[in-house]
Structures are given as C-alpha cells and as structure tokens.
C-alpha cells in the first residue's frame, strides 16, 4: 500500500483561494453556532413558559434533532463528501437505537 503521501505544493493563488474558502466556511460555522444557541434558547423558554407538555415535548424533541443535525453536518463535516460510509453506519446506529427506545417506552411496563 502506498504509504508515502505525494506532497503537493500549492501555488500562491491556489493557496489564497483555499484560505479564503475555509475562512468563508468558518463564518458559516459561526452562523451554525448562532442557530444552535437560538434553538437551545427556544427550547428552554418553551419549557419555562409552561405550555402543555403535549405541545412542548414534540417541539423540543424536534429542536434537539435539528440541532444535532447541524452538529453532525457542519461541525462534524458530514456534509462534505467522503462521509458516505460514515453516515451509513451512523444512521444504522440511529435506526437500531430508535427501535430500542421505541420498545422501551412501549412494551416495558411499570
């Protein structure tokens, strides 16, 4: 197996382009972060506001799912290519996990 990495020295423009691109991406990450904080705030206030749990529970669960998707796809770069296997296995785990949770809240009693 080829263990030596072929180092490729970028030209100045290439390099600057790359720097700019990742700086842009980093700004995107900041937005993601802001959204996450915002979602958290909504979740906490929704609970504080004291609406009926039947309403709030689905909402905060949904917010949590959105927030996790942001983490996974942006902070953990799952949106980048090369993550096909990664996401396949992660989702398989999620499916198994969901089935587990589902049974435990339905057919485990008392």
């Amino acid at each position: 197996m080829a263990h030596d990495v072929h180092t490729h020295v970028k030209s100045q423009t290439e390099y600057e382009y790359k720097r700019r691109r990742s700086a842009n991406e980093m700004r995107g990450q900041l937005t993601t972060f802001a959204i996450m904080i915002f979602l958290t705030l909504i979740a906490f206030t929704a609970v504080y506001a004291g609406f009926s749990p039947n309403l709030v529970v689905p909402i905060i669960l949904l917010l949590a799912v959105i927030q996790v998707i942001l983490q996974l796809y942006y902070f953990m770069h799952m949106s980048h290519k090369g993550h096909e296997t990664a996401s396949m296995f992660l989702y398989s785990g999620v499916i198994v996990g969901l089935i587990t949770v589902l049974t435990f809240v339905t057919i485990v009693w008392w």
Partner: protein
Amino acid sequence: MDLNTKYTPQSWPDHPENSTLEGKNKFVGFWLFLGGETVTFASLFATYLALKNKGPSGMEFTTQGLFELPLVFIMTMLLLTSSLTSVYAMYHMKNYNFKAMQAWLMVTVLLGAAFLGFEIYEFSHYVHLGFTFNQSAFSSAFFILVGTHGAHVLVGLGWIILLMVRNAKRGLNLYNAPKFYLASLYWHFIDVVWVFIFTVVYLMGVMG
C-alpha cells in the same frame, strides 16, 4: 509516510486528517465507533425512560422536584461553546497553524472542565439531598446515563490534553493530524449526546 517532511501552509494537504492510509483508517474506524456509541447511548436513554421516576414505594424524588434548569442552561452553553472552539481549532489545523490550534484546544479544554465541574457540583448536590446512586431505580438510571456522558467528557478532556502535551514539541504532521481531528469529532459527539440529555432528561423532566 516520511515524518521528517516539513510542511508549510502551502504544502499542507487540504484534508490532513485522511491523506494517509492510517489517517483514512482512523477516520472511518472512528465514525463506525460513533455508530456503536449511538446504540450505547440509545440503550441508556431507553432504560432511563423506562425507569424514570420509578423507585421504592413512597419515593419522594421526581424529575420535577429534582432538576433545576438554570444550572443545566449554563452547562449547555458551556458545552455548545466548547464545540465551536474545537471547530476553530480544526480550522487552524487545516491552515497548518499549530499555535492557534493549540490555543483553541486549550479554550475547549477549559470550557469542558468547567462543564464537568458543574456536573460534579450537581451530582454532589443530589447526593446531599439523599438522591444517591443506590437510592432507587430512577437514581441509578439517571446517574448511569448522565454519568456515562460525564465520563465521556472526562475521557475527551484527557485525550485532548494528552495530544496537546505530546505534540507540543513535535508540531503538526500527518501522523498526528488525524488524531487531533478524531479528538474533535469525539468532542462534537459528546455535545450531540448532551443535546438529547438536556432535552430528554432535564427539559422533559421538569415538565413531568
């Protein structure tokens, strides 16, 4: 891989985390591990949900009586922010800026440690109330779920610190870049789990 190769920002690859075979293997292997971790935590959550508020007859502890949101909110903010700082660290890693990366990791570690400190405070508070690990099925399930997450935070901190120390002199290379990257993935995953903990355990808890 030749370790003696010295990189410059210009020659540093775009994806240092998986530009070697070892890196690729680690990268894929770690994601698979996270898939397994998902199932681990799902099992813990499932058990917690099944045992929530269950205890010996006449138990006075309930999620509603026990949990206090302000503390949880602060903890959540700390952990979320630490997630962002580790993104910054990886940003500088990709730019081959070792010093900045170490600095951001340092911030991450501090935030994580603060989080852990609050968690320890919270646990000891419960223990003082008499809500100990052995008190009921509910307490066992609670401490195991949240404690397992806490243990992950601890391991994450240890891991990042170890990496920072061992590489302080070596600097960045293609042998340790994947390790930094994985540590940050791990850190994000801890945050993912926490999002569900604060939602399912605390928020849904105070609502009863």
